[in-house]
C-alpha cells in the first residue's frame, strides 16, 4: 500500500523545475493517476512553480510541495515565503484577442485554474499557500 503524504522542498529556480515534476510524476504514477491527467497536473505545477521562481523572491528562496492522496484525488499544496501574491485575484487574460493584440501575461495561472478541479489561495504566517486539487 502506497503512502498518502509526500513532501519536497526545493530552491525556487527554473533549474529545479524538473526535480519538482519528477517528484510529482513518480507519486502520481504510484497512485494510478492516468497519463493524461499527470500531464495536465504537470502543466499546472510548472506554471505555479515558475511564477514563484520568477517573481516571489528578491534574491532566492524555497518552495515546498506537499502531496496528499485520497481515493481518486490528489491535493498539492505549494508554499513559499516570498512577497504576498494571490494569483487567483488576477483577472483572466482576454483569450479572444488577435495575435497582434495579445500579451502573454496571465496565461500560466489560467492554465492552473483550467486544469485543476479546484484552486485556493491563503496568506498565512507571511507565506503564500496555493492549494490545488485534482480529481481523477
Amino acid at each position, binding site marked *: 500500500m502506497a503512502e498518502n503524504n509526500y513532501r519536497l522542498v526545493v530552491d525556487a529556480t*527554473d*533549474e529545479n*523545475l*524538473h526535480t519538482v515534476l519528477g517528484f510529482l510524476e513518480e507519486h502520481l504514477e504510484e497512485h494510478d493517476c492516468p497519463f*493524461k491527467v499527470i*500531464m*495536465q497536473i*504537470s*502543466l499546472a505545477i*510548472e*506554471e505555479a512553480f*515558475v511564477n514563484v521562481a520568477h517573481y516571489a523572491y528578491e534574491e532566492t528562496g524555497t518552495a515546498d510541495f506537499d502531496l496528499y492522496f485520497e481515493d481518486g484525488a490528489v491535493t498539492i499544496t505549494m508554499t513559499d515565503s516570498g512577497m504576498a501574491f494571490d494569483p487567483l485575484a488576477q483577472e483572466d487574460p482576454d*483569450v*479572444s*484577442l*488577435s*495575435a*497582434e493584440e*495579445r500579451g*502573454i501575461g496571465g*496565461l*500560466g495561472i*489560467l*492554465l492552473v485554474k*483550467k*486544469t485543476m478541479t479546484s484552486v485556493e489561495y491563503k496568506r498565512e504566517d507571511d507565506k503564500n499557500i496555493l492549494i490545488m486539487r485534482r480529481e481523477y
Partner: protein
Amino acid sequence: MEIIKTLEGNKLTVALKGRLDTTTAPELEGELKGSLDDITSLVMDFKDLEYISSAGLRVLLQVSKIMNGKGEYKIVNVCADIMEVFEITGFIDILTIE
C-alpha cells in the same frame, strides 16, 4: 528537446521533439531568432512534441508577430493534449493549426 530545422529556399520547417517548457523554450527562441529574416513560409511540426507550457506559448506568439505580414506560419501534427492547451488559452483562434 530536439529542434530539427529544414530549409528549402524561403520555406523553413522546424520539427520539435520532447517538451517545450520553461527550460527548453529559450532554446527554441534562440534557434529562431535571426533565422526568420528571409523566410516567407514557416511550418512548425509538432508530431513528436509531447508537452507545452505557457513559456512555449510565449515563443509561438512572438513568432506569430514576426511572421505576420511576412508570409505563412502554421503548426502541423498537433497531438490532443497540446490541442487542449491551445483551446484553453485561445491560441486555437490565433494560430493556424493543421
